[in-house]
């Protein structure tokens, strides 16, 4: 059964934003619709729209009420709907993220293994076998909400969150997996760390990915980790 709405539903989020909902579940078809609409909007950003933020099943439009209104935005979106067939959603880019699993950088990998009756090697093999779609980015700069974690490596959050996780930490919480791009507190089970800088504000493009791309985790050795880390700088 599809959770895609026939018609988008508009929710008012204050006097400068609307949420446009295309479905009510975390589902590829719904998210693809969101991405298609976001891509169409961004092709030629209409006057009065300050930001377009795609999420799992809706997109947020931040607008200037002195220039436009929710009514105008809704009719604009309906107009774009008719042109949806014109836009070719680009095939998702695969973004490879090298990860040094386990050891000092992945202190909770054995918890995940034991919880699921697997060996550490099996956890790594399963985690690195999927291309994870990025449904949304938020919480901290570059933090991805990823779909598609294999049931065999789900694991509960830590009872006590860590006060500081180093940027680059890769973790699992319930049915989610993800990476912490910047140092932050967090309660996820940490299984590894990437040597890549996931948020590099001084670069022209500070991020390696956007919503809609797919993340592929690539196991690396300690040596490879060091080599990539040295190249990345601080």
């Amino acid at each position, binding site marked *: 059964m599809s959770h895609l709405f026939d018609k988008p539903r508009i929710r*008012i989020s204050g*006097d400068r934003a609307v949420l446009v909902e295309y479905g009510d579940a975390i589902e590829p078809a719904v998210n693809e619709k969101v991405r298609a609409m976001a891509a169409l909007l961004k092709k030629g950003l209409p006057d009065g729209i300050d930001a377009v933020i795609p*999420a799992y099943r809706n997109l*947020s439009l931040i607008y200037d009420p*002195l220039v436009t209104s929710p009514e105008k935005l809704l009719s604009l979106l309906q107009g774009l709907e008719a042109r949806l067939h014109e836009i070719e959603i680009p095939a998702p880019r695969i973004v490879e993220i090298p990860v040094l699993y386990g050891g000092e950088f992945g202190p909770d990998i054995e918890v995940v293994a034991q919880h699921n009756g697997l060996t550490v090697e099996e956890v790594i093999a399963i985690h690195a076998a999927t291309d994870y779609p990025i449904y949304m980015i938020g919480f901290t700069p570059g933090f991805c909400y990823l779909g598609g974690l294999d049931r065999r490596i789900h694991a509960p959050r830590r009872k006590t969150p860590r006060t500081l996780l180093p940027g680059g930490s890769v973790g699992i919480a319930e049915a989610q997996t993800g990476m912490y791009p*910047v140092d*932050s507190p967090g309660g996820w089970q940490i299984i590894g760390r990437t040597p890549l800088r996931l948020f590099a504000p001084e670069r022209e493009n500070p991020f390696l990915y956007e919503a809609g791309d797919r993340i592929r985790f690539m196991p690396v050795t300690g040596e490879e980790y060091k080599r990539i880390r040295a190249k990345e700088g601080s």
Partner: protein
Amino acid sequence: MVVLRVISPGSFTTVQDRGRYSFIDRGVPPSGALDLFAYGIANLLVGNPAGTAVLEITMMGPALEVLGEADVALAGADMAVTVNRQPVPMWETVRVKKGDVIRIRQAKSGCRSYLAVTGGIDVPIVMGSRATCVKAKIGGVEGRPLRKDDVLARFPGELLAKPRTLPANFIPAYSPDIALRAVAGPQEEAFRSGLEIFFGSIYEVTPEADRMGCRLQGPPVHHDEGFPQSIISEPTVPGNVQLPADGQPIILLVEQTTGGYTKIATVISTDLSKIAQSVPGNQVRFQEVTLAEAHRLCRTQALLLRQIEAQLSTNR
């Protein structure tokens, strides 16, 4: 050109401008001045264009040594200001010269004030803005609050021939009883019974209030039966009022981009300044307004700012 050296930084002083809106879809919060009204006035008082970077001062102000002549103006929370130990007024242009010492004391009412200098604070633009985002460690001075011995530069700009004063009738009063106008939504349907409690009760501002959000305490507002407490995470905006499981409202502000709690209502943009100026212990009431009314208030506010600008810039 260098303009200020930090003798003592105050409790939390950051460089802010109108904020960073181009990377919200990558999880970078907008940041920016929390009280956009006081921020805008501070810039007008020294003749800066809208959007110029200033210092946002929180609760306890800094002491600053002046390294080069400039016009400065302080607008916002009522803080006693002295230059070389002589009191100087807020909401007014003050000429300072090399060797002067500006001291900004604890707020007597309100919470945040804005110190503008001729030309604006000269820090690099990072991802489209000079605003400090401490969480992402970007903008302002190395992405952090000011520290002792930081040296700030300013951009070139013309000193004013005549000082400017904001007419007293435009100076906001920061009352401990705050009325916040809000539109219902985005998830008001989850609170059919809760809306009445929410819009009919008095809440107190707790000490857990910063640029990320303002946590309130008062009569709890619970979800109607059948509505889950959390939703699929989605983008948030400043002013969204979240209700977590304990039913105590949290007003989200400018250092956050997504959230997974239901939001009963959203404070209108013109009233965000009042939250910026609230302090723990203040009493908050929410008043429901329609979206049309909120938009009318936006237009009125824009008109008011233009009127103030026209009035002030006759003193070139």
